[in-house]
């Protein structure tokens, strides 16, 4: 039933001939909503006094008489004026195919599905048809289909997938072999290949639950946090820069939000808690903020989420418009992450395709406005909160006083030594010369007489300064060094000030949000009550946040809203989150437009499965790991990726595990891991990238890619060539390009060559001198398997040829090692390495 509705909706949108009997509610009103209702129904003030929200109102007509005559299109001005191009005014016209539909419908008597109501509330409201759209249905846990034991159904997930497979006469592919499975799971969960030890241990474990245990081990790994945080950071629009034009100002403290996400994911912080902290962490803190405990710093770091979008307010220009754009972008990120509908379409007028009104958009903004505070907008630089406690501040003042004192002591001591050495040296001159010499040196340079100048110039050895004391007195050096050391010791005690950047709602801000006429912030109209999208509540109700929370210093609007989202009954949030987790594992979502579940998005491939997982996520206490576990332990996930069944060649039904190209970060990290160069240092400020001589952006760091600086205008060359997110607001879904540029990076790039050389050295160290052992080792490191029959021979031949060739070319250095480097590079750049099995 769900599918049928969806497909009907889509055919309508594409304007292809629909079912024979066209109905107003299902076929015609959606077209009118896009092209007509803005002026003829949405507003109380009707253009030409014509209301097209109901058939009977169209028949009644407006200033220019009836707009519709049942059975007679040529006497129906509504369609005649569309045909002539007169309506709608402006540049966008009704496509011909849709005019044809309206024509046909009028000819057929302009039927409606049901009797039309006697009275209508103002505005477009939400029709029964719109409410019937699958995504807006209340979330109800679907019954799990029955399966026979021979069906290899391990879990409810399998049952849902198998039901569709069976209906097409397709079976699950057999489970992949153990070696494939551990590579698949390790890359999926940690973004790193399994170590040889891990592979051996898993192969040796013959227990029935060896696979499940292996999954659990990787889920518990810190690397899991670094890998899955990156999935979230895509949709959160994570960036270490503001994206403000060519300056693209750095955000020195964005990393705390990145680290927050890593820690939250790793510890399986329940998603309701994680999003509560991200949306409203600051509302959990007292005002004024005072000394921050580490837990409180985390809460502020979490709100970095609301500041991740591009923000050009630092660059100057039209402040009101820039702030409005920054807010709109943040709302895009929030809705992409939690609502799965493009609320931005309702910024200027009612959403044309989904039941999201212009007012709804501003109701949502009103939830955040006291914090963003457009009328008291803070430029990016002004948003930081110091992490220094009162006590640390006092300590700093104290240490600074000590520092001044010690510094003066040191200076005095130096002067004392300079004087002493000067006297000692001047004593070496004959008595009569001493007075004029002393006078000359003690006189400041500008006031010296010509004779004094000459004296000074002729006797450079009397020009004693702190810098040359060492040439005269080792004792002076020793004494001063002691003072320097104690100065340094004092300085090292000085507390260093650092900051967290996020969104902090100021106490007492009561921002009244008004609808912006046509989305223009300079034209506010009616005020709105903050709240959730109307469509997300059952018919006749709406989640309003009418009163600000009196128990906390802030309005509490964001707290109220995010708690509402995670009550478990919200139709949007659970589905959106479950879909995103699924997409992380399979490379495509059940709804493959993961930020657009509305009419503009793609239909779900397995709607019941999605609903089931959304319910399961809520009932598990929003534990992402428990859903991971369920997905990874399923037969769907364990299937071989090599078996292709004709009835499902494109794998829409999941009759095999999809082969996926690794994401940019995984390619890089996997290379570092195999070469033995991976620097496992965790957390902290972004590792800066710099432009090299060839104008490419890279870093010299071997840390995991997630720690490299993400600048909107200056993406790291290797990562961006493999489709890491760039300048856009956020990334709902990675694209997967295949380009010659990537091939050049892999063939000639320094990073890949360096890792190949390091891998060759590692192979030599670990395998010793025997060429055949070296080759096995290289294959095992790169591909996590022993060489295939014939493969070792081919590689031996390659090595021999390369060594000989290099020798004839007069290669300077170890030709065997150079050959091995070349071999390692081909392993690191081959499809077996770049794609997950």
């Amino acid at each position, binding site marked *: 039933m769900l599918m049928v509705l969806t497909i009907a909706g889509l055919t309508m949108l594409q304007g292809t001939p629909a079912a024979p009997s066209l109905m107003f509610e299902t076929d015609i009103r959606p077209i009118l909503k896009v092209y007509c209702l803005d002026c003829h129904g949405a507003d109380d003030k009707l253009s030409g006094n014509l209301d097209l929200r109901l058939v009977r109102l169209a028949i009644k007509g407006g200033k220019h008489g009836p707009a519709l005559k049942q059975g007679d299109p040529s006497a129906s001005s509504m369609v005649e004026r569309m045909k002539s191009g007169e309506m709608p005014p402006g*540049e*966008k016209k009704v496509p011909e195919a849709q005019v044809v539909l309206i024509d046909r419908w009028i000819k057929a008597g302009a039927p409606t599905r049901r009797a039309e109501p006697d009275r209508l509330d103002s505005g477009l409201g939400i029709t029964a048809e719109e409410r019937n759209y699958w995504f807006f249905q209340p979330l109800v846990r679907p019954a799990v289909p029955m399966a026979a034991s021979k069906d290899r159904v391990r879990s409810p997930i399998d049952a849902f997938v198998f039901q569709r497979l069976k209906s097409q006469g397709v079976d699950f592919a057999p489970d992949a072999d153990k070696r494939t499975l551990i590579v698949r799971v390790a890359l999926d969960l940690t973004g790193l290949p399994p170590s040889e030890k891990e592979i051996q241990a898993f192969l040796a474990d013959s227990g029935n639950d060896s696979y499940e245990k292996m999954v659990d081990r990787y889920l518990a790994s810190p690397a899991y946090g670094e890998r899955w945080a990156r999935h979230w950071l895509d949709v959160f629009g994570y960036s270490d820069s503001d994206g403000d*034009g*060519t300056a693209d100002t750095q955000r020195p403290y964005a990393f705390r939000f990145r680290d927050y996400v890593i820690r939250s994911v790793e510890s399986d912080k329940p998603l309701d808690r994680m999003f509560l902290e991200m949306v409203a962490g600051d509302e959990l803190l007292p005002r004024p903020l005072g000394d921050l405990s580490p837990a409180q710093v985390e809460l502020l770091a979490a709100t970095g989420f609301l500041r991740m979008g591009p923000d050009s307010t630092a660059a100057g220009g039209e402040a009101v418009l820039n702030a409005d754009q920054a807010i709109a972008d943040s709302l895009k990120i929030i809705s992409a992450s939690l609502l799965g509908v*493009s609320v931005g379409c309702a910024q200027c007028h009612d959403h044309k395709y989904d039941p999201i009104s212009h007012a709804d958009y501003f109701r949502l903004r009103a939830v955040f406005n006291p914090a963003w505070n457009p009328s008291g907008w803070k430029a990016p630089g002004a948003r930081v909160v110091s992490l220094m406690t009162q006590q640390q501040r006092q300590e700093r003042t104290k240490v600074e006083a000590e520092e001044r004192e010690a510094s003066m002591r040191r200076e005095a001591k130096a002067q004392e030594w300079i004087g002493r050495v000067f006297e000692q040296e001047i004593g070496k001159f004959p008595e009569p010369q001493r007075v004029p010499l002393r006078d000359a040196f003690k006189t400041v340079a500008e006031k010296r007489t010509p004779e004094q100048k000459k004296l000074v110039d002729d006797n450079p050895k009397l020009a004693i300064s702190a810098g040359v004391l060492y040439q005269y007195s080792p004792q002076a050096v020793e004494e001063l060094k002691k003072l320097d050391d104690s100065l340094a010791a004092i300085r090292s005690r000085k507390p260093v000030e650092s900051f967290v950047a996020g969104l902090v709602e100021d106490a007492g801000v009561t921002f009244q949000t008004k609808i912006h006429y046509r989305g223009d912030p300079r034209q506010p109209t009616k005020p709105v009550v903050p709240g959730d999208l109307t469509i997300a509540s059952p018919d006749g109700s709406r989640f309003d946040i009418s009163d600000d929370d009196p128990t906390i210093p802030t309005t509490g609007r964001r707290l109220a809203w995010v708690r509402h989202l995670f009550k478990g009954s919200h139709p949007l949030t659970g589905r959106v989150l479950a879909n995103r987790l699924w997409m992380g594992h399979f490379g495509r979502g059940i709804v493959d*437009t993961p930020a*657009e579940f*509305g009419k*503009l*998005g793609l239909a779900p491939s397995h709607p019941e499965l999605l609903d089931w997982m959304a319910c399961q996520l809520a009932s598990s206490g929003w534990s992402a790991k428990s859903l991971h576990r369920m997905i990874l332990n399923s037969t769907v996930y364990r299937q071989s*990726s*090599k078996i*292709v069944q004709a009835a499902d060649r*494109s*794998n829409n039904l999941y009759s095999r595990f999809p*082969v996926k*190209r690794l994401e940019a970060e995984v390619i890089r990290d996997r290379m570092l891991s195999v070469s033995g160069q991976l620097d496992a240092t965790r957390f902290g400020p972004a590792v800066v990238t710099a432009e090299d001589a*060839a*104008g490419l952006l890279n870093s010299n760091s071997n840390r995991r890619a997630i720690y490299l600086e993400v600048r909107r*205008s200056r993406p790291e*060359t290797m990562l*961006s060539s493999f*489709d890491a997110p*760039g*300048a*856009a607001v956020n990334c*709902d879904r990675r*694209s*997967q*390009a*295949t*380009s*010659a*540029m*990537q*091939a*050049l*990076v892999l*063939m*000639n*790039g320094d990073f890949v*060559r360096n890792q190949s050389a390091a891998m060759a050295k590692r192979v030599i160290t670990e395998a010793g001198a025997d060429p055949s052992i070296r080759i096995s080792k290289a294959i095992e490191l790169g591909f996590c398997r022993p060489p295939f029959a014939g*493969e070792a021979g081919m*590689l031996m031949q*390659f090595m021999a*040829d*390369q060594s000989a*060739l290099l020798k004839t*070319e007069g290669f300077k*250095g170890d030709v065997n090692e*150079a050959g091995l480097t*070349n071999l390692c590079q*081909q*392993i690191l*750049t*081959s*499809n*077996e390495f*770049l*794609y997950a099995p």
Partner: protein
Amino acid sequence: MHPNSIVPSRRDLLCQTGFGVGAMGLASLLSQDSVAAPSKPGENLPLSLSPRAGHHAPRATAMISLFMHGGPSHVDLLDPKPNLSKFSGTDYQGDVHFSFVNRASKKLFGTPWKFSKHGRSGTEISELLPYTARVADDICVIRSMQTGHNGHEVSIRYFHGGIAGVTGRPTLGSWMVYGLGSESRDLPAYLVLSDPGGHPVDGTHNWSSGFMPSLYQGTVLRPKEPRIPFLDRPTGVSVAVQRRNLGLLAELNKRHATEYSAEPDLNSRIASYELAARMQLSASDALDVSRETAEVHRLYGLDNDATREYGTRCLIARRLVERGVRFVQMFLGGQPWDNHTTIKDGLPAICRRTDQPAAALITDLKRLGMLDTTLVHWGGEIGRLPVCEGALDANAGRDHNGQGFSIWMAGGGIKGGMTYGNTDDVGHRAVDNVVNPNDFQATVLHLMGINHERLEFHANGRVSRLIDGKKARVVQEILC
């Protein structure tokens, strides 16, 4: 070969010869390139750069765009206004929107430079563009451009992405290569020649593929060697060593692909190595202007300090288009045409840098028989005001003007030796036959064989077009 040409062109010949990749033994994979599955309605064209037919026979198969960031002063270059000179120094009576209000003035500022008629067509061109004047009969000057916005970025984005001020959209070049793919199997389809002075204003947005995959993004050639990153083999890897490396890689990939027969992406990647290997050979060749004669060097001004850099890039642009690159766009660092002050020095300087090379491109394309199928565009995002900025003295400049300005186009189906449209009496607003950036885009795509209303991209369930549902017209009057 192009569907509309009978004799193989110089471009065809260069496209078809000289790969020298047979040694790789992967000829079968090349066929991958030419197989482009037609897309179904509601679907995107295949994610590839295989050449594909547009909606109608094209007049142009390639385009070179000389983008003039900053707003070239049309009343000093291409749009003579005798009345502006006549009333110079008096107050302008119309409304003016100023960007730099602190230096605003309503004093009309007649051009300090002389215009005269050139060619058989008698197109009037300023003495600042003596070389362009010589190709007057080959170019069509459009004097009625209008963005309606005076700002740089807002108008730049209008020209590139189709909507004024909005970023995150694919650029004109992205749409072109998305719709048509590339005729070069050896070079990227969409190339950007950047300036040694740095990125133009609005940075990478100028060649972004927006919501399209990065495959359709402009590939930026660096302003100096290495112009293409990663093109050079690593130290210690000779041609012979690399050939063996790629041979081994192909073997590894071939075996792997047999295990995953249903994954087209694996074969695309194998083919991408092929292209990369070909690029190593052909790109360095395409970029090597030393292979041109001394006469060609002189034509483009490579023998002169003022014109050498821009001339080299113009010559490279020609060599790229010759090799089947679909779209080449040249940028200038910063915005040298943004003459707010001392226009009397600033404008001649940037003209000296660009005039000769730009004209040489037309001359050269024409004598090589390529001008008919290569569309050339010269122009900025805005023009400049007829009134002066600051005092009307030696330091006078001109403020932004998006209400009326000039560009020129040539070749690829454009009628040469004509002017089109008019601004008002002083060159402030376009008044006759107004052409906005969407009309410009519609015309460009039309010449390339694309109907702008039918070229769609689907992302996140949304259908987008370059000219996003707005009305735009193909300027038929300037087509031949």
